[in-house]
């Protein structure tokens, strides 16, 4: 571990696990109701496009849901990011933006 990493970790405020859990639950509940995938059918790292869970309309619905629910802006770079292809990646995108906004420690 580099000196910079140690320093960064020491200075970073602890994350709020309850908020992260809430983000994860909201995204998974939305995916289950909107994309009709049951619990256990899709893992956190499943590629949602390759697994035929999300089509282009579904992606539009997903982006709209994330922006409205969490009050964040999904930018051009996010849309092309491989992170947006998995549930775990989407959660990281959302928590990262919440952290930037100061809504998540």
């Amino acid at each position, binding site marked *: 571990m580099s000196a910079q990493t140690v320093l960064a970790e020491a200075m970073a405020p602890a994350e709020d696990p309850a908020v992260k859990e809430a983000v994860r639950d909201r995204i998974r509940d939305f995916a*289950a109701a909107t994309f009709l995938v049951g619990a256990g059918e899709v893992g956190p790292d499943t590629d949602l*496009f390759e697994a035929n869970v999300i*089509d282009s309309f579904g992606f539009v619905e997903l982006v709209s849901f994330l922006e409205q629910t969490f009050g964040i802006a999904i930018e051009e770079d996010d849309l092309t990011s491989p992170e947006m292809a998995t549930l775990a990646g989407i959660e990281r995108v959302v928590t990262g933006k919440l952290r930037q906004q100061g809504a998540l420690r």
Partner: protein
Amino acid sequence: MTGPRPTPVQACRRCLLPATLPGLAFTADGLCDLCAATGEAEAEAERVALRARLDALYAAHRGTRPYAAIVAYSGGKDSSYTLKHLVEEQGLRCLAITVDNGFLSAGTLDNCRAVCAALDVDLVVFTPSRRFTERMYRASVERDDLHAPAAVKRASAICSSCITLINTHMLQRALELRVPIVAGGYLGGQVPRDGAVMTLRPGRQARIRTALVNRFVGALGEGARRYFDLPGAAEGDPEVVVVNPMLGVALSEEAIKAALAPLGWRQPTDTGLTSTNCRLNDLGVYLHSRRHGFHPYAMEIAEQLRGGTISREAAARKLGTLPGRGDVAWMAERIGLPADAL
């Protein structure tokens, strides 16, 4: 002692969405979660905001290119109205492209030609290989992996495949001709509310497109690639904005048809119970209703009810009137479905 058990909700008391529609939840007083989330005032405010956004888009492209917009022109009432709206009210020079799927009513191409002549619009008819489209329709019925599971909420599998081919063709032509707008005549419920304006930059959604192409090529062979693939991203490629202006329109079916009559549009008499252009539509309705337990038009009819453009009686009548096996047997035979598929 326990009281009587509450009667399960059969359908939303406002929009008639049935409890059989997957993913739908109901409030204690019988509203579906979609109705509970959006009141009439919010829906109208959304339409107003959408129209303003579309007006700004049109203004940016009006007169800037040989064609400002390609209209995915099925010849049905909704895409006919979309074309009229863009040409007459928005002053956009449009190229209408009709995909002849092999099942268009004889009156449909007459309607396409009449409306385009009246509006002074160029019309191109693209007829994909009949052998391919019939195989595609058959595969749509026989396989459950061509479309994402949630697509069943919006349309039958047959319609979803056709729509995917048509939409891809419009994007292919828009990229080829460098036309900045592609307009569809889809209604609320057929596409998500946020699908009224979607910006496509070549390569941006490459992962989604690649997955789609792989599914169709896997099911139908390499020949499917020409119908579903898009050119890769290249430096300087323009963006294409896909719009569905009907999501901002609150007009009844009768009002739309009345507005089209002066252009020479006539209701075909051989398109079954629900379509105004396609003779295959009823097979999709028949199979979807039997397989999934709800009418594939349930979502769009629900949107019309929420928007006040259809009466509850007319909506219930549409949802309750289904084609019979005898009505659709010839369609099934033509796409090569075995008799027991019905």
